[in-house]
């Protein structure tokens, strides 16, 4: 018998996935991070917590989400069968709610009644505003002014639900700067506030916590797919911004015989500043509390990234992805703006499903893979969100 090799028992107690991850954060946050580590390890064993999470996941968010066989898309590719894991059907329109509910529950158990969040596409901000309303917590969302412009409907939704949306006019005026501001808020209000980070990024234990809450995606695939089709899919694809939908999709499958692919934002070119493909085109360094892959210049300054999709327009990536990349478990490939836009329109026309621009990156990569595979190959793509928020930026105002 072979020795069982698992990629599941990460991070270690210091938050490291191999050499990635950790806590590269100001000392002020250390007590809050420790408290979070402690609370989470306690809540993990708490049946009441799991019951409440399960109840909200199913009745509030709409879990489980279906796996849809995309008949016409499959025909278009002319190769492998393409299935979509429908996270776009979740309340709010993206996978972000999986994490938001989980963390808001933690905040509730910690007795904190103020939520801080950053947002890029506005999907995580929306999810946070939703759970803020649901739990009656004060909610402050930091959002770059450039993102506010390109994701206006989400700004309106957040405000309507009572969240305070704070424009961030610094740096590149996008997600990275919103993270900085959210961290500064947390540093200042750490005793009353929970920082509800929106992806598998940041200092330990965030990458682990967010991954765990998002793992419901992969767990459902692991359960539903063999039930319906006799075995696991051959290939699974997800887009990677911060990497939460991908981590949640991949983690339950890392020890299985499934090829895993992450689609990054290839933007308009390979040179720094033209894309947001931290793993495929970046290098390792410290960003937002973790050692991971990132887009930086030679001296170590973070470079403003580019992607047509606000949710992928981020210079870092979750440290577990860096780990998976280095040990060769997951392949990460860039998908260009143009390819994503084309796929966005294609899926809308062929399936009557408007994918988020973020998700369109994943489908685009899946189409490429499908073309080279036989008809009995099965590819599941995580459709991380719906594209209603992107209509204006794709079609013009």
């Amino acid at each position, binding site marked *: 018998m072979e020795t069982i090799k698992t990629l599941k028992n990460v991070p270690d107690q210091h938050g490291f996935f191999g050499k990635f991850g950790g806590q590269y954060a100001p000392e002020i946050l250390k007590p809050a991070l420790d408290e979070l580590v402690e609370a989470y390890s306690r809540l993990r064993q708490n049946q009441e917590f799991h019951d409440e999470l399960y109840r909200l996941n199913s009745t509030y968010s709409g879990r489980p989400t279906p796996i849809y066989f995309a008949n016409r898309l499959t025909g278009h590719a002319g190769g492998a069968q393409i299935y979509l894991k429908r996270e776009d059907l979740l309340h709010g329109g993206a996978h972000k709610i999986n994490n938001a509910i989980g963390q808001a529950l933690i905040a509730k158990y910690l007795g904190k009644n103020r939520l801080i969040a950053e947002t890029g596409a506005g999907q995580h901000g929306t999810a946070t505003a939703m759970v803020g309303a649901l739990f009656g917590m004060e909610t402050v969302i930091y959002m770059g002014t450039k993102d506010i412009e390109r994701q206006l409907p989400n700004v309106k939704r957040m405000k309507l639900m009572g969240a305070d949306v704070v424009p961030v006019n610094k740096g590149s005026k996008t997600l990275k700067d919103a993270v900085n501001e959210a961290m500064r808020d947390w540093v200042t209000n*750490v005793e009353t506030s929970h920082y509800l980070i929106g992806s598998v990024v940041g200092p330990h234990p965030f990458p682990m916590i967010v991954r765990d809450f998002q793992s419901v995606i992969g767990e459902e695939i692991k359960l539903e797919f063999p039930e319906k089709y006799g075995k696991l899919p051959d290939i699974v694809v997800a887009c990677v911004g911060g990497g939460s939908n991908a981590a949640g999709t991949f983690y339950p499958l890392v020890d299985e015989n499934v090829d895993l692919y992450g689609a990054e934002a290839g933007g308009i070119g390979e040179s720094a500043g033209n894309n947001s493909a931290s793993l495929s085109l970046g290098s390792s360094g410290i960003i937002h509390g973790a050692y991971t892959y990132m887009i930086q210049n030679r001296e170590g300054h*973070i470079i403003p990234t580019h992607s047509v999709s606000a949710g992928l327009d981020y210079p870092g990536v979750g440290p577990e992805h860096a780990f998976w990349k280095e040990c060769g478990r997951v392949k990460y490939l860039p998908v260009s703006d143009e390819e994503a836009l084309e796929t966005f329109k294609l899926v809308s026309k062929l399936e009557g499903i408007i994918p988020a621009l973020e998700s369109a990156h994943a489908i685009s990569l899946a189409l490429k893979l499908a073309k080279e595979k036989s008809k009995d190959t099965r590819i599941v793509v995580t459709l991380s969100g719906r594209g209603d928020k992107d209509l204006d930026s794709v079609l013009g105002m």
Partner: protein
Amino acid sequence: MDATTPKFKRKHSNGEKLVAAYWVLGYPSVKESMSIFRTLNEAGADIIEIGYPYSDPVADGETIQDAIQKALTEGVHLDQLWKVSSTIANYSDPFVMTYGNIPFQFGLEAFVEKAKQSGIAGAIFPDLLPEVYPNVLKGIPPAFLISPNTSLERAEFIAQQSQSFIYLITRLGTTGGRNFQDKRLEKLIHSIKSKRNDIPLMVGFGISSQSQAIQAFEQGADGIIVGSELIKKYQTGGKSQVLEFVSELKEVAAQFSGNS
């Protein structure tokens, strides 16, 4: 103590209270910042913290962020850091304060080597906790931060790890704020000093007046660190205001010297 012991440590041993002054390299221009570093020395600053600009200074407040932003657009680079620290080393103790990714990208060993050659007496990386602080960086003696919400136990651990001075933050938040949290702070200071007194305990993040400095010394601090307020003073009154403010703080420090 030997010939290589930095001046501020000698002063500390002699019971002198210290003033550390922070300024952003490259703000408002590289040339003017060099001149300001000289001013800080003239005013009597015992430690000169060279803030080396980093694109995403999460631990810094508005004032310093903006100064850093300006410095970056001025095109500051590491060669200037080495140059300015070499100069400062001639008359004072230069520290470098920047974020972890800068040495990570430069190469840790190379960074330490270069910094030592340039006379840097210590380093502060606000996003490197003692737990993840690369051993090799200890070649430029680190000052670790302790914050008001740090537990006593952990504060002692951090104090043990610190090698140049102990940096006690006076408030939750980023640099530049103003509210002292008296009781907790005093307790922390005493507790730390009872365990480790061979390196100075410096208090910072929010010193904007003489009275605050007085308070810090009364609570037992060995020194104070001033940063944001210097930039504000410069913005309203130019270099002379900076000179005046640091001089005043030095006077306060002098009043408390010899009392420890």
